[in-house]
């Protein structure tokens, strides 16, 4: 049994050894084949590379040749094209120049026409404006005149009223003075009359007394001449004395009456003076007030007139400015509309191309 197992084990070992030998041999063969293939592929690659290099260099040479031919062809075409473009451009430029000149001439004509029309229009406007302004000024002046007249009338009325008042006051004062002087004169006359009556009465009484004395004298004469003579003397003395006293009394009373009359006259003169002064001061006040009123009115009228003048000037200036602005707007609008309509579409195109040329020259179109 053991022998059997040993033999079996030996056989197995032999088999494994054989298998190992075969595997090793196959691996060796494969390695060799791989080496051969690698060598062959290297050769093939080298050959291919050489061939491709040849092809590429040939292609490059061919391309260079074609490129040279193309360049030559392109240059010849460019020369021809440049000639053609240059000719056409020159013609085009000439045409544009001509058209631009025409357009410019037309524009200049239009502009001069527009300028003349504008000047005419402006003149016309100014004339119209002046006439309007003149009308307005004349209306305003009329208004001012009317107002001034009204003021003057009012002033005259005030002055008249004041004059009437002053006249009335003067008249009243004069009447009052007259009345006072009449009263005073009447009183003085009455007093003089009273004095005269009293004097006459006293004279009458004195005459009666004298008459009585004479009668008594006549009686005494008849009784005795001597005694008469003494008595006569005494009587004469007494009479003279009495007459003197009476005359003095009368003189004194007359002087008193005269002094009283003088006092009255003085008081009348004073009253007259006071009245006169009052009237004078009243008329002075009235005159001053009237003058002040007149001056105030005149100042106010002047101020109003200046204000009105200023307002007219301002209004005129504003109106002129507004008309100017309006005229400017109208002219600008009209000129733009007229010029826009006057230009044809082909002229528009030419002007546009001209503008592009100008923009190019001004380096607007550079990148």
């Amino acid at each position: 049994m053991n022998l059997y197992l040993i033999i079996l084990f030996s056989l197995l070992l032999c088999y494994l050894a054989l298998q190992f030998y075969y595997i090793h041999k196959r691996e060796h063969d494969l390695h060799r084949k791989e080496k051969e293939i690698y060598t062959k592929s290297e050769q093939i690659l080298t050959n291919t590379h050489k061939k491709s290099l040849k092809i590429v260099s040939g292609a490059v040479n061919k391309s260079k040749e074609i490129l040279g031919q193309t360049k030559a062809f392109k240059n010849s075409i460019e020369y021809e094209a440049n000639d053609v473009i240059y000719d056409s451009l020159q013609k085009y430029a000439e045409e544009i120049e001509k058209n631009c000149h025409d357009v410019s001439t037309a524009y200049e004509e239009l502009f001069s026409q527009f300028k003349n029309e504008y000047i005419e229009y402006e003149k016309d406007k100014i004339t119209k404006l002046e006439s309007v302004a003149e009308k307005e000024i004349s209306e305003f002046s009329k208004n001012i005149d009317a107002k001034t007249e009204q003021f003057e009338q009012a002033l005259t009325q005030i002055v008249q009223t004041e004059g009437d008042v002053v006249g009335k006051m003067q008249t009243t004062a004069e009447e009052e003075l007259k009345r006072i002087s009449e009263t005073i004169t009447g009183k003085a006359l009455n007093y003089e009359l009273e004095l005269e009556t009293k004097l006459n009465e006293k004279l009458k009484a004195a005459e009666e007394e004298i008459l009585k004395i004479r009668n008594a004298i006549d009686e005494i004469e008849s009784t005795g001449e001597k005694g008469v003579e003494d008595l006569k003397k005494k009587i004469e003395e007494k009479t003279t004395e009495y007459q003197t006293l009476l005359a003095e009394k009368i003189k004194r009373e007359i002087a008193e009456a005269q002094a009283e009359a003088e006092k009255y006259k003085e008081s009348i003169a004073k009253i007259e003076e006071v009245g006169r002064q009052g009237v004078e001061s009243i008329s002075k006040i009235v005159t001053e007030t009237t003058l002040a009123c007149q001056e105030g009115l005149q100042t106010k009228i002047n101020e109003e007139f200046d204000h009105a003048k200023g307002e007219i000037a301002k209004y005129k200036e504003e109106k002129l400015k507004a008309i100017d602005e309006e005229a400017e707007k109208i002219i600008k609008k009209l000129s733009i509309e007229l010029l826009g309509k006057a230009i044809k579409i082909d002229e528009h195109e030419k002007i546009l191309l001209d503008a592009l040329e100008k923009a190019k020259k001004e380096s607007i179109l550079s990148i």
Partner: protein
Amino acid sequence: MIPEDMYKELLEDINTTEESVTCIHQLDDLGNSLFVKKTSFDEKLDLYLENNFRNKLVTVIEKLKLDVNDPGKIEKFITEIREKLKELPIMRLDLAFEPTASIINHISEWIGHNLEQKVLLDINPDHTLVAGAIIGFNGKMVDLTLKHRIEKEYINLLDLKNK
């Protein structure tokens, strides 16, 4: 990447910003419809694009040998055109008149010759300008209108009058 000469050919008739916007909208519509399989590419072109532009687009597609049945590639192509249109420089022109298509072509030709590049025109008519144009380009602006000239002359006239 579309070559420059093909762009030139394709965008030859697009001169204004308005036309550019319209074209971008049409390309957007076409781009949105590319993945719809019910209609053919030709039908989509007929449906969304203006005839002249459609023909130019077909020519360019043929030249570029693009597969019209590959919506991904066509979409990329359309996006490129769209971006190119958006990148184009714009020149603002305030004009005193409504320019005709022929005048717009003349202006574009002039710009093509003189600036050597494609420029879109943003045209704004303003009748008060009388004639000429206000030109705005690349952040610069110049008033070359007759109105401007008249105003200058008018100011001179007023100065003379005031003197």
